[in-house]
């Protein structure tokens, strides 16, 4: 897909102020083909910045991973543009067939997680439904030259011409980026893997499927330890599945998992080897007045993320974004409506399956803001201190180059102002599920169907 890559870069020369209906964010780049006819394999299914923010990885339904690298000069200038260019592209997963169960295993990349950098190379974990892989992305700028028995172009030299031995010498060459598979962690999941998360001890990671969570050592592919198992003895008694899981960013013994019933359990691996008993349960009591057929579906946790500080945890369900203080289990400290106006539309969203969409969410590097996606290529940002929120649109058509993104308002009924749109006009096929925030800078990346958008906040 990236061979047809179309990069839409903007010039940030004249930037208007932060006026009415304008945000401080502006489009920096769009990657991917601008084409209405999207191939299934090109649909993006994961977006993730590396720990330094220098690299940005996307995965797609075709099992490919594309890594973008931030341009060196743009990184060093505080006012500079966040420009990312393709660094490496490789096929991470291939479609497979499980002959024992007669099941097709899709190649779709479900999650990508970077490892903290350990040497000049970069490492990431990628997973499809069944198999996690560890990839090494490394640079090579030298190659050996000089043979004894042939020319550099491969023509053979007659052995009789051999009078002295020649040792090859490394010579500089054009920079080459290689992605090589280092480990394949297979055969440990009966159900579909929904999350992977690297532990702060830098040597283990977890992988979670619908009913179980396994703990792996990065160096060993032949064994993993089951740390959570919620499979009931009788599958007919199954009422809840695991939907997302993550390790605490600082405490190596703590991890959480969210469930389809809207609860999040925090487990302490110090307490016992099998963490079936949680140490904390974060759950908000249901409001009986809003109870409906859809209550359970919309309360399902689609993503859970710890804040960088490790003090808070954010959960995303279908309509809201909640922030929990790890010290308070009874209710979230902050609740943000992502698209509350959809509450009256649940029936049709159920019919077109949108209600099962799994939106991700992410924290700003300093934890002061959070972001998540919505429909109509809208995405939402919530400023926690100012209690301010914006709705922005990922679009290459509407934003003129370098201009601030305009903020949208969605209102019931017919359209009124230029910056307003009626609920009925929203396009539910255009959705932003995957988002990632640069760990340090004011740069965000998000995926619409097959395009990667990079936005940047203008400095004060």
């Amino acid at each position: 897909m990236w061979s047809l890559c179309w990069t839409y870069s903007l010039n940030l020369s004249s930037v208007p102020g932060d006026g009415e209906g304008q945000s401080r964010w502006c489009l920096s780049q769009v990657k991917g083909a601008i084409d209405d006819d999207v191939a299934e394999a090109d649909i993006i299914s994961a977006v993730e910045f590396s720990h330094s923010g220098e690299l940005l990885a996307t995965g797609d339904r075709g099992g490919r991973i594309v890594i973008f690298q931030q341009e060196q000069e743009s990184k060093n200038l505080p006012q500079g543009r966040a420009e990312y260019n393709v660094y490496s592209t490789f096929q991470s997963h291939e479609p497979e067939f499980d002959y024992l169960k007669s099941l097709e295993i899709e190649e779709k990349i479900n999650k990508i997680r970077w490892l903290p950098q350990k040497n000049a190379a970069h490492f990431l974990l990628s997973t499809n439904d069944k198999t996690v892989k560890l990839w090494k992305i490394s640079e090579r700028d030298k190659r050996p030259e000089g043979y004894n028995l042939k020319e550099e172009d491969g023509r053979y030299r007659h052995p009789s011409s051999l009078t002295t031995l020649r040792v090859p010498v490394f010579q500089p060459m054009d920079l080459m980026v290689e992605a090589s598979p280092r480990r394949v962690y297979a055969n440990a999941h009966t159900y579909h893997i929904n999350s992977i998360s690297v532990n702060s001890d830098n040597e283990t990671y977890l992988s979670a499927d619908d009913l179980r969570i396994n703990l792996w050592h990065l160096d060993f592919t032949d064994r993993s330890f089951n740390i959570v198992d919620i499979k009931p003895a009788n599958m007919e008694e199954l009422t809840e599945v695991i939907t997302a899981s993550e390790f605490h960013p600082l405490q190596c013994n703590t991890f959480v998992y969210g469930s389809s019933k809207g609860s999040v359990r925090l487990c302490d691996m110090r307490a016992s080897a099998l963490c079936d008993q949680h140490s904390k349960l974060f759950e908000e009591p249901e409001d009986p007045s809003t109870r409906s057929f859809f209550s359970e579906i919309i309360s399902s946790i689609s993503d859970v993320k710890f804040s960088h500080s490790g003090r808070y945890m954010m959960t995303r369900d279908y309509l809201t974004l909640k922030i929990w203080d790890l010290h308070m289990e009874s209710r979230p400290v902050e609740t943000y409506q992502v698209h509350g106006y959809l509450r009256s539309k649940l029936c049709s969203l159920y019919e077109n399956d949108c209600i099962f969409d799994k939106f991700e969410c992410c924290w700003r590097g300093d934890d002061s803001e959070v972001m998540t996606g919505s429909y109509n290529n809208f995405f939402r940002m919530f400023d926690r201190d100012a209690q301010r929120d914006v709705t922005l649109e990922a679009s290459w058509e509407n934003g003129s180059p370098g201009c601030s993104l305009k903020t949208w308002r969605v209102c019931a009924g017919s359209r009124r102002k230029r910056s307003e749109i009626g609920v009925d006009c929203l396009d539910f096929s255009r959705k932003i599920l995957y988002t990632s925030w640069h760990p340090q800078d004011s740069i965000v990346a998000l995926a619409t169907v097959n395009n990667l958008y990079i936005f940047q906040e203008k400095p004060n």
Partner: protein
Amino acid sequence: SCSCTVVSKQPLASKMAGADSDDSLYPIAVLIDELRNEDVQLRLNSIKKLSTIALALGVERTRTELLPFLTDTIYDEDEVLLALAEQLGNFTMLVGGPEYVHCLLPPLESLATVEETVVRDKAVESLRKISHEHSPVDLEVHFEPLVKRLASGDWFTSRTSACGLFSVCYPRVSSTVKAEIRQHFRTLCSDDTPMVRRAAASKLGEFAKVLELEYVKSDIISLFTALASDEQDSVRLLAVEAGVSIATLLPQEDLEALVMPTLRQAAEDKSWRVRYMVADKFSDLQKAVGPEITKNDLVPAFQNLLKDCEAEVRAAAANKVKEFCENLPEDSRETIIMTHILPCVKELVSDTNQHVKSALASVIMGLSTILGKDNTIEHLLPLFLAQLKDECPEVRLNIISNLDCVNEVIGIRQLSQSLLPAIVELAEDAKWRVRLAIIEYMPLLAGQLGVEFFDEKLNSLCMAWLVDHVYAIREAATCNLMKLVEKFGAEWAQNTIVPKVLGMANDPNYLHRMTTLFCINALSEVCGQEITTKHMLPVVFKMSNDQVANVRFNVAKSLQKIGPVLDSNCLQTEVKPVLEKLASDQDMDVKYFAQEAISVLSLA
């Protein structure tokens, strides 16, 4: 082998340079070219013959051309890098001896920073090896700076590698450099990344061993205390082992103040993994701290570990029960066991977790030798009997496999009434691996229970296994018969098992008929010529007319196998005609094996 004993003063290459072309260069040229072949196997092969290449190049070209090339070869596959790291550890003579050994440092330094743990570890191992070949001056001029570079590297891979190198430099450098080394080690113990702190914690014990006692007390103890209270339990658990090493270095009077508070804290750590580590290292710990501290501190700590809330910890502690009891000071051993340990052991017999019970079952029998006959009968026997009736087959198997310990103390008869049902049940277990395991203990049991008991109670079991529906069981049963005959003798075989085995030759199931042949293969040698010729051979001959080809070719194979037991007359007059007939069989396989037997027995 890569360690090179032949050191050519005059390099091979220069000897050959005079000639226009030399055939002996060719194989070396191939090896060098294959260092960069696309096929990993060929590269690996070349790296494994690196000493041959170096020898051909001579010491000077090895230093100036080969080593620089190898230094840049870090992009290669792990297995190639691993082989390279190993080779370089034995390369000293090939670069010109100890005087030039420092030339090996650059390639090993780059290998010590790769991400693959096994490669780094091997590079560190080779660096440690060649450090001994450095003169004291070279060590300070070349080796120690490398250690410093690694210790202050940007990436944690290089810093973890540095942790393993301090202890080899330290004893051989000046006191100024020693102070620097101690400072570097201290810095790494409080590194930002847990990987480095873990590497430092795992090398703390070995580093302590080379330090002067005053620095052990002033430096190591504080590092140990810090690592043992690290926020990451993966670091804390490694400090436990370091604690054991440090305890062996300190005089008894310092242990209590310097090490015990930290170890006590580790035994009660919030994280089960740390407590597991304490349980796992308990015997070493016990030896390191000596009898007094054992009595006062370790006994209650061990009791707590045996009662731990986490099954993994209880299992690790249960594994150590025998060793711990054995190593208790003799004067108070029996009292401590009877009043403190045995009550905990009794509880573990009915533990909820089967791994705990089976860990205990694998060592509990060993207590009988320590406690003697009376205590065993009164206190341990009920526990053995309870475990023999455990629902988990592994527990029962572990008890049965250790029967020899009890046999020495009280004789196995005490147990036989309970033993028999347990054996019968395992012998008929639905899982074939359990059946296989009990078969393997049969010869041992037979020896201890005696031939009478065996004939009466167990013989029928052994025969039943011969017709098990799983091949692995039938095979093991065959082997078992052979071992029984070795124990009880040929006469016993002739009276009890040979008739039954031969009777199976008429079984309607061809698999059982083949079992007869397999048994004959196994038994002929232990039964001897007379029984083989008189009783077994006629049956084998008869089976050469079997309607199933698989049986017939196994007849050929059996004849080949038992041929050496027979006398030559019998071979010529009886075996040869049968094999010849089989050699003209219509079945290909029968022909093949008959011909093979004829040629092996030299009957052609």
